[in-house]
């Protein structure tokens, strides 16, 4: 992403990911589609992936969730695009190393992102075995609720 001068306060990289989320939207004719769904709040993260022999050829995500989810989804997809699936499985820890320790709230958002990615891989495997599911859904156990008076990121 283009470099810019930013004032103190929020992590500049975080602001850029909010203003210009990377790999946002949906892929046409993906190999797999996965959703992490919080049925209590109706929040979701959805991933579409295209896989190549040596890893993740293309990846997109979308969400109706909070800005933390947007930022983590944007950073995650940027990190894993073109990489192996094994690398992707460790990418959330790398994001944590980059952003600093995630708050409990941000961990829930990160789990939503990662679970949606995992669901897309399960969908790829299920389709390869002849199943017909349109997308694989993983239900979230915890909800992202921003405490009163607090803003995330």
């Amino acid at each position, binding site marked *: 992403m283009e470099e810019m001068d930013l004032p103190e306060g929020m992590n500049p990289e975080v*602001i850029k990911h909010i*203003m210009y989320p990377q790999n946002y939207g949906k892929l046409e004719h993906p190999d797999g589609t996965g959703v992490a769904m919080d049925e209590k709040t109706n929040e979701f993260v959805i991933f579409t992936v295209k896989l190549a022999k040596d890893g993740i050829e293309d990846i997109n995500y979308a*969400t109706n969730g909070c800005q933390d989810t947007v930022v983590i989804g944007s950073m995650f997809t940027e990190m894993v695009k073109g990489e192996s699936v094994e690398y992707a499985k460790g990418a959330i820890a790398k994001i944590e190393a980059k952003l600093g320790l995630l708050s409990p709230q941000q961990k829930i958002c990160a789990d939503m992102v990662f679970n949606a990615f995992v669901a897309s891989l399960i969908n790829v495997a299920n389709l390869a075995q002849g199943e017909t599911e349109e997308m694989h859904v993983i239900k979230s156990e915890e909800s992202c609720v*921003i405490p009163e008076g607090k803003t995330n990121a």
Partner: protein
Amino acid sequence: MHNLYQVKHELWLDILFASFTIENSVIKDRLYDFSMIAFRHLKWIGGDILESGDDYNYDRSKMLLRRQSNFEILNYLLEEIKAAQAAYTPSTLTERIITDEAYLVQYITALLENSNNDAEVTAFDMHRTLPNKTLDVVQTDSLTIFLFEESYKEYELILVYAYMQARTDNLLHFNVFQDLIDESHFHLKSFGNMMAQMGILALPRELHELTYKITDIEKFIISGIKEEENAKEQCKALSDAVNDTELSQFFDFINYQENYHIALMEKLLPKK
């Protein structure tokens, strides 16, 4: 027809965000009026698509490009209007749309003839300050996140309610959806202009169909009421946090409006 809907959806956003971006209040207000006309075009196009037995979605393909000057924005709008018109097929509706857009083109062309209408654009430079306001880092961060969260939410609400309004035969529901859409337009306008003033103007994210294809309206409304309550808390927290009377009054004003949104949304719940 899908393509026409998407083209018009993107043109509405182009005009709306041009209005937010340009500081000159006369041009800003005029473009905002045109954006609301474009939104009505979108609603009518959607109605025609549904009447024909087809359907539409809220897919988009364009990003909000950062522009350096008013004239860059206005020239871009002219190009986009021209490109949109290539998607129109002859009908009473497209005749109306074309005459509206011809008037907008005349207005923009006249603006471009006077160099006094040009100015540098600061809506995207991330300076994160407001004119004549002194906010500390924590207040600025809180306001920044609030504006990103709520501008997306208002855009989402406009489109979700419009989607449901286009598909209801219930007059009460139709009217409630219209009120909620009108209210969200006002909030989006308020937040969009504030984001531009702070140099953090960004296009709300595209909606995935999981967001607007509602299968359980009762669950959707109950969840929406919770979101409104959360937005009220966010407004109250911001109002308390910012050390500025004018800003506090504004966030209190928005907070009190959310109360009535909740009352409106409750009208959509089945009577028990």
